């Protein structure tokens, strides 16, 4: 890289200190090969750049914004061109590059459907009346306790007010059918001993006994598919990474959970963090990856603390490190926080984010299994997917398949929110009908009008879909998707036009902006829906055609899943007559 040139602005002492908590001057002088091999993998070319986002977080947290001097200091320490560091800083919602002029807390108020239904506007008014600095936020992953807030502090830790008041109880507590959630609400998430008392680390022992090949075969035979949205067969993914030559591979737990309506990964990471660590370790041993990464969304401070605590305890107990759990293999985990960007949950955007680049998805192929994080073979999995592996390793694939359907074996987590009596996280066998699931959550409140299945990237279904079995195949046949397990329930009092305009706004705000179909298409789609809402009338034929034309181009020509799905909820709402109907 050429010699970098910086502007005149210098970091002040506080900014230098903030940078120094992540990378000291001595660290920067030599790229140290630490005991923890994961630091930077072998990506020497990129040097310390993978610490850019942590450094920016530190500046934001200590100073309240990223000033020109702070940015220069960070860029110089890490050897990153300042223009590129600025490009990264301006990518994230939680990082500010303009001086707020105060160091007060910033209160992020969720404006997505479950919170809108639960009276977030009244909450906004009361907060503002008390002088709070409120800014709007997409879904904060707390839809079961809507309306949701996240408080970003300057010099004080970030926090979620609801965490302090919460008296957590899993709706299905005590149900013997629970697999993924069986320890949630039961185990002490801060204690390795408690985790062991509740069967923890038996799956890893079984996996070490079986050996890598047999573990991958068992995962394949179980029929486990990804729970992050794309439903890719996990066994095939692990096999592909295991078959790659070379010693440098990664496994990533994708805890970026930002699909509106999803909160399952937060509950898992807060209530059973060791299970995430244990299952990642199995993934590492099975695929031959020594480096594990947890990428968690920035709005989850408690889950972050608990995962960090679990990593530290597991490391101290020898369950992570040079000889992880006596397996003879090296495996350790590093945690990275996102900073407010839904797109960073897309696996290749996630790699760029960790590497210190803008969170822009990469074109596929090449796929992550051959060229993933730092261009090395990588298995990315959702935490729910990973936790299923614990059951498979302990009980075998046949037992795993004892519930669910032939093509959708096992259980599935669903995040129920909106107009249901008992919103919360539920685990049911694949094949349970939508109606039975909603009844499990106490039934709908009011007269059910529509259900948003799969979140903003999913689709609306009407009351006639209550008899639909929740499986991958049935959802596909109905033109819907289970996605990340979102079930948001709307009754006939909901203003569906506002809901759909908000979904369109979400995609407009969250598009990374890289490719034309999505950058412009999400903007124009939002404009058409705003126009429709303002008109108060039916959807004109040429507007309906425009919506379809844009949708087809976004689905066909965009780079990633965000663009591919950005119009699916909108189109389903039109098709169901939820919006734009002739009077």
């Amino acid at each position, binding site marked *: 890289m050429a010699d970098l040139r910086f502007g005149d602005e210098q970091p002040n002492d506080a900014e230098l200190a903030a940078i120094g908590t992540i990378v000291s001057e001595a660290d920067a002088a030599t790229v140290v090969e630490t005991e923890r091999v994961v630091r930077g993998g072998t990506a020497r070319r990129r040097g310390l750049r993978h610490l850019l986002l942590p450094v920016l977080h530190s500046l934001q947290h200590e100073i309240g914004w990223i000033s020109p001097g702070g940015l220069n200091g960070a860029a110089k320490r890490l050897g990153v061109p300042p*223009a590129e560091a600025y490009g990264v800083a301006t990518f994230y919602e939680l990082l500010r590059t303009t001086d707020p002029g105060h160091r007060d807390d910033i209160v992020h108020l969720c404006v997505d459907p479950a919170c809108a239904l639960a009276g977030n506007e009244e909450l906004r008014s009361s907060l503002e009346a008390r002088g709070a600095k409120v800014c709007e936020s997409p879904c904060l992953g707390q839809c079961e306790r809507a309306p949701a807030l996240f408080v970003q502090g300057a010099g004080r830790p970030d926090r979620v007010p609801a965490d302090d008041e919460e008296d957590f109880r899993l709706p299905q507590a005590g149900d013997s059918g629970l697999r993924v959630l069986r320890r949630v609400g039961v185990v002490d998430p801060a204690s390795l001993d408690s985790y062991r008392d509740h069967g923890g680390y038996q799956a890893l022992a079984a996996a070490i006994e079986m050996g890598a090949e047999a573990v991958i075969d068992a995962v394949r035979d179980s029929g486990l598919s990804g729970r992050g949205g794309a439903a890719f067969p996990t066994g095939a993914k692990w096999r592909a990474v295991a078959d790659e030559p070379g010693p440098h591979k990664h496994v990533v737990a994708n805890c970026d959970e930002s699909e509106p309506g999803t909160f399952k990964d937060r509950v898992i990471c807060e209530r059973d963090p060791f299970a995430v660590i244990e299952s990642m370790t199995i993934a590492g041993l099975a695929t031959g990856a020594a480096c594990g990464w947890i990428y968690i969304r920035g709005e989850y401070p408690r889950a972050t603390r608990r995962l960090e605590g679990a990593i530290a305890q597991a490391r101290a107990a020898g369950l992570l490190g040079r000889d992880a759990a006596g397996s003879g293999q090296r495996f350790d985990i590093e945690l990275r926080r996102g900073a407010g960007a839904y797109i960073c949950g897309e696996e290749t955007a996630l790699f760029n984010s960790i590497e210190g680049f803008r969170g822009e998805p990469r074109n596929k192929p090449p796929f992550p299994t051959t060229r993933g994080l730092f261009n090395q073979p990588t298995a990315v999995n959702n935490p729910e997917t990973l936790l299923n592996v614990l059951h498979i390793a302990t009980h075998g694939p046949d037992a795993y398949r004892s519930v669910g359907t032939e093509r959708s074996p096992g259980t599935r987590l669903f995040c129920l929110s909106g107009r249901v009596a008992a919103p919360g996280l539920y685990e049911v066998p694949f094949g349970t009908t939508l109606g039975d699931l909603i009844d499990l959550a106490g039934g709908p409140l009011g007269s059910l009008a529509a259900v948003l299945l799969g979140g903003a990237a999913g689709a609306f279904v009407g009351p006639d879909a209550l008899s639909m079995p929740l499986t991958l195949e049935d959802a596909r046949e109905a033109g819907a998707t289970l996605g990340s397990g979102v079930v948001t329930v709307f009754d006939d009092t909901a203003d569906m036009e506002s809901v759909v305009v908000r979904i369109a706004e979400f995609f407009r705000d969250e598009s990374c902006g890289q490719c034309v179909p999505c950058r412009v298409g999400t903007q124009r789609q939002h404009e058409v829906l705003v126009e429709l809402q303002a008109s108060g009338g039916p959807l004109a034929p040429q507007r309906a055609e425009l919506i379809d034309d844009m949708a087809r181009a976004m689905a066909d020509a965009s780079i990633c899943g965000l663009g591919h799905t950005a119009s699916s909820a909108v189109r389903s709402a039109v098709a169901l007559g939820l919006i734009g109907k002739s009077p």
Partner: protein
Amino acid sequence: MITTSGVATESAVTIRVDGKEVAVPEGATILDACDAAGVQTPAICYGPTLTPVNVCRVCVVELEGSRALVPSCSRAVEDAMAIHTDSERVRHSRKMVLEFLASGVDVSQADELRQWAEHYGADPDRYVPGGATMDEPVRVQDNLYIRDYDKCVLCYRCVEACGDDAQHTYAISVAGRGFGARISTEFDAPLPDSACVYCGNCVAVCPTNALQFKTEFDLRQADSWRPEDQTVTRTVCSYCGVGCNLELHVQDNQIVKCTSPDDHDVTRGNLCIKGRFGWNYV
């Protein structure tokens, strides 16, 4: 089979482009195969001297067996691929990309883009009146070149030319996100205060004239920019011993801009400040 470098190779890949078999060397892209088949393909973000970033998506083609369309400029050929370059789906997506761009960007000086837009029947006027546009002031910060981001289609070419692909200066990057994304220096610092060394390589690759020589900008402002009256003279730069080729564009006996041929082994379209702008001081 003859490769681009003129050497026979055994590892040729054969694919079908609109039903016609073409053989191209291993590692070639679908775009290369389309070229070989004599099929013209629109391209905005792709440039022969740049690493494909595949962001504009105007070059998409239909690949049998693939759910979505694929960008021809970056997708490597694989044996027995079957490509369609003029199906309804392809024409639709290409039209929409061009329509989308023209609906929010001033493409008045992007001649090639406008020709393709016409070819595919793009209608940028059918969107909601008053919709968002780039809405950026012209940045005139020195006497060498101007940046008019109202004309920017965010093709990333300038960023690539300033960074990894040619200059290794990294003076500019993409900042912001979504429709608000813009090409920018850090904190939008004026170019003279940034890392820019005025090689002009970004100007050379810009497909829309968002980046323009100041001489051209001034003449256009005065309504006296007349490309049809310009002559182009090839010469070798005399500032140092490298031997860069220059193309001097002359209008009314005045040099009005300086380019460098893409196909030249040494420069590949790139120059330094002396070659690119030295004539300014002559």
